[in-house]
């Protein structure tokens, strides 16, 4: 949206150029263009739109990663847990394209399944979770610790299809659900490896870190109103055709179009650009006009441009259902995470019930009661995470679910989600306990509703 706005603006500028040569631009336009080149990207076209660089707190999209880490028929309930969660968040509005579903085994078409191509999460077999349309992004042997951590950190080989990537940005709220067999600070994947709580914590920290991937350089020469030059993005250089530009604008740096193009390029390439490059700490972006030299006839520019890839999430909700699940999020140290798990250290998480015809347990207790609550929510629900956590009943769940909101310290700001208008954290709400309650008032819709 922003890119097209910029493109439209550029086109307008390019078209207008011959007519406004030698004239003062309207101050509003001058300001827009100046803002554009200053790199803050806030284009004031009626309403102020926060720019790409300033999207840290904006929430525009939701993503979900649902992981069933265990295989084999007798772990049917883990597949059912995950698929039930999949169905619920799909119902609440996250499209299939924004859900990464990892199923370590295929129980639906398992030879032992008396009801082929179906998975049920309740004893009466009322609702088929597999349904008519399902997209499993990672399945079977593809579900490994490596692929899960690569998915989170976004480091993939170039040829990996988009359906297997978590294409989130700084304005994404990410919901991660994991289930399987686990223990103190680990979760078993397949039948031979484990992901540790430290691994996930580090992966999430990498998601949080802002990355600076490459320097883009433009060299151009302007002759009067026409500029020619080269734009280099990474290793690829593109020769720019002759472009008419605005000459003699005191408020502007020498060559408006080049930096604008430079600014746009990395944004449009997000997700397609090689993410293999190792992410590192952000380097301060050099103002675009910094290296511009001007002569009356020609202008030569060198624009070292840091393509800041913003962090990969805005807020993160982590839910885990396994034995000793609360240890899984005990190592998190990145901000803006709210986590909850099914059982505390030393406790098992039990299955809820089984179906006699399927012959195995069909759902775990914690997931069952989570879903029991989520199924009462509609797309326009104003329910908060506080309401959600308040439904936890250790007696029914048969374990003590844990809630961690201590990492969700962020400056107070209002949500811009069209479906909610809660202030976060709310001014004076004491929710569960003094230590963790107030920050749990995040609207649940923040994680499961489609926005903008």
């Amino acid at each position, binding site marked *: 949206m922003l890119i097209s706005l910029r493109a439209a603006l550029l086109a307008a500028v390019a078209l207008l150029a011959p007519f406004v040569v030698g004239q003062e631009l309207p101050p509003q336009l001058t300001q827009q263009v100046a803002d554009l080149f200053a790199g803050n990207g806030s284009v004031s076209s009626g309403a102020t739109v926060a720019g790409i660089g300033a999207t840290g707190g904006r929430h525009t999209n939701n993503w979900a990663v649902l992981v069933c880490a265990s295989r084999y028929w007798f772990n049917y309930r883990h597949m059912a847990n995950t698929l039930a969660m999949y169905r619920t968040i799909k119902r609440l509005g996250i499209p299939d394209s924004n859900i990464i579903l990892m199923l370590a085994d295929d129980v639906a078409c398992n030879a032992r399944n008396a009801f082929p191509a179906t998975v049920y999460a309740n004893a009466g077999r009322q609702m088929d979770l597999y349904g008519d349309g399902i997209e499993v992004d990672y399945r*079977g*042997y593809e579900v490994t610790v490596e692929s899960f951590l690569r998915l989170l950190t976004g480091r993939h080989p170039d*040829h990996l*299809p988009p359906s297997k990537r978590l294409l989130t940005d700084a304005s994404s709220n990410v919901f991660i659900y994991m289930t399987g067999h686990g223990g103190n600070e680990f979760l078993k994947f397949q039948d031979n490896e484990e992901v540790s709580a430290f691994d996930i914590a580090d992966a999430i920290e990498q998601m949080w870190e802002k990355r600076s991937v490459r320097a883009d350089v433009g060299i151009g020469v302007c002759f009067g109103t026409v500029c020619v030059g080269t734009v280099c993005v990474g290793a690829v250089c593109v020769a720019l055709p002759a472009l008419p530009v605005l000459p003699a604008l005191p408020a502007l740096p020498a060559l408006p179009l080049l930096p604008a193009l430079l600014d746009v390029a990395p944004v449009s390439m997000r997700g397609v650009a090689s993410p293999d490059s190792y992410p590192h700490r952000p380097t301060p972006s050099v103002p675009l006009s910094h290296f511009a030299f001007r002569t009356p006839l020609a202008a030569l520019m060198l624009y070292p441009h840091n393509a800041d890839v913003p962090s990969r999430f805005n807020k993160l909700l982590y839910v885990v259902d396994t034995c000793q699940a609360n240890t899984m999020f005990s190592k998190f140290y990145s901000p803006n995470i709210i986590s909850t798990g099914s059982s505390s250290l030393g406790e098992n998480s039990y299955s809820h019930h089984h179906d006699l015809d399927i012959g195995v347990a069909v759902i775990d207790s914690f997931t069952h009661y989570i879903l029991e609550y989520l199924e009462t929510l509609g797309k326009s629900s104003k329910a908060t995470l506080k309401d959600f956590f308040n439904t936890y009943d250790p007696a029914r769940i048969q374990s003590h679910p844990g809630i961690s909101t201590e990492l969700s310290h962020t400056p107070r700001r209002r949500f811009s989600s069209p479906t909610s208008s809660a202030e976060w954290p709310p001014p004076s709400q004491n929710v569960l306990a003094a230590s963790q309650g107030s920050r749990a008032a995040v609207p649940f819709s923040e994680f499961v509703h489609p926005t903008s």
Partner: protein
Amino acid sequence: MRILLLASLVPALAAALSTSNSFHEALTLHPLPDGKLSVLFEFTTYFASASTGSSLRQSHHYLTPPSLLLPLEHNNISELTVSFVAGQWDQRRSGEAGPLHYESGGGGGEVRGWLRSNGDKAESDRAWTAVTHALGGLFCAGLGPSDEGDIVRSFGDIYPPHRGSPSNLTHYLLPHPFLHLCTENLTPFLSLLPSKGLSGLSSLLAQPGTVFSWGFKSEGIEVIMPDETSPGRWRGWWEGVVDLVPERGGSRAFSLERIFGRGIPRPFPEAETSVLRLMVSEGMSMEPEAPKREGKWIDGRYREVAEWDLLEPGMQGRDVRFWWDGERDFVHPRTLRPPSISVLRTVTAPHASDGTFTIRFSNAGSESRRAVYSEVWPWWVKGWISEISLRVDGSDESRDDLLDSMSYHPSTPPTPSTTSLHLFLTLPAQSTLVVSIPFTKLTLKYTEHRPDAERGVEIPSGILNLLDTIGEPESVSSDVPLGVENARQTARRRIYTNRLLLDVPTPDFSMPYNVIIMSSTVMAVFFGLMQGALTRKWGWVELPKGEGRGKQGEDEPKAGVSVVEGGAQLAGSSS
């Protein structure tokens, strides 16, 4: 004049474009002698090149799925086939050498195709890797190579191109024998069809609960990209085998409603043709009677095919019923007529480390046949090629003369790579040729074992490629009696064996850790004792009296036995 010409050309071009895009669908029912029914859906789309002649890069898609064709176009694919097979085709019980759709591959998943290459091998490899991963994403299955060495390149002669000469094309084959078939593969398949599973025959298929309860299942696509002269074609197929005999016995009588739970569906408006076909078996009746019945050569036999046009007005919602006259209880035949050629591959493994592939080629026909038998093995299967032995069933005499020649592309262990082996064989008439290939299983690395321990690893199907088939003639003289056989009059060129599960002894990886932990413990205990004995001294320590009183209630050690480090320092207090 020129303008006039151009003006007359434009509508002609448009007309050509619209007529070259057409969609055809067919449902074929083929009753098998063992009381089962093979059900085959075929959806065929002919299309012109999607990219227009304009200088701007753009493409128009009318009936074709851009998500499928764009990656193929982008990666210079000329032809591509993706096939998934779940379950096992029983050649002996069905009396057919393979499923009704000849392009169905062997067990598991498989991608194969021809790339237009400009001689740059690295570029072609990159394009192939890219396109297989893209299709893997599309079909919710890992179709791409996990390592470059998984790609097999020696099967160009087995799968000759439909178009172009092999000289400027490169063939790739990528078998994935462990893949299976489930709803997540059917959903994208349906979404590629223009009818999307909502109308036409595809709406019968869009019932995962029904179609995945069938025995043998095969899904696949075959795409031939358009070139300058001829339009492209993409065909999707779905085949399954339904058991017609009720659980408690009874007649095989069936109907569309009984199989699919609904009658003839609402026609897909863009479909050029939509037909229901039945390969009529002996004594079969149907209601409504087929408007068209004709004889056809299908897979080496002259058979009667009944055909209904489902686009006829009045067909929608109707049921079509089939029964065998006078059949009350289906009696399973005591003898089944075998297909003219069948292949059975087994593995005999006296030890965990070694084994022998035994492949039995049965030729029921009255003439000897020429064929190439091909195997693909992962690098850790090391065949003893010089030990390959041939004999004809019933005698122990070696028949090495039946092996004309051999083409062997060894793997490069221990890097991920494949061995491919092609044996040029003569299959003698009315006999069974038995080929034995001994092999050794090499040791896999820690990370190369499957994550489900002790299950074993699947290896791809073997392929028998018949060299002397003459195709299925379209026009037939009317005096050919039904049921006549000519094994060579078939378009089925390839017969697949089942895939094989090879036992790979999975080491218990906890054992080395046990040993390490145990020996470390022993070392630590021993070292600790020795260290203690050598450097420590036991004795009485007198604590000053004032300290104990001042800190009452805390767990301060009182006077008693304690260890004294470096005896020399506190020599005074020792007794």
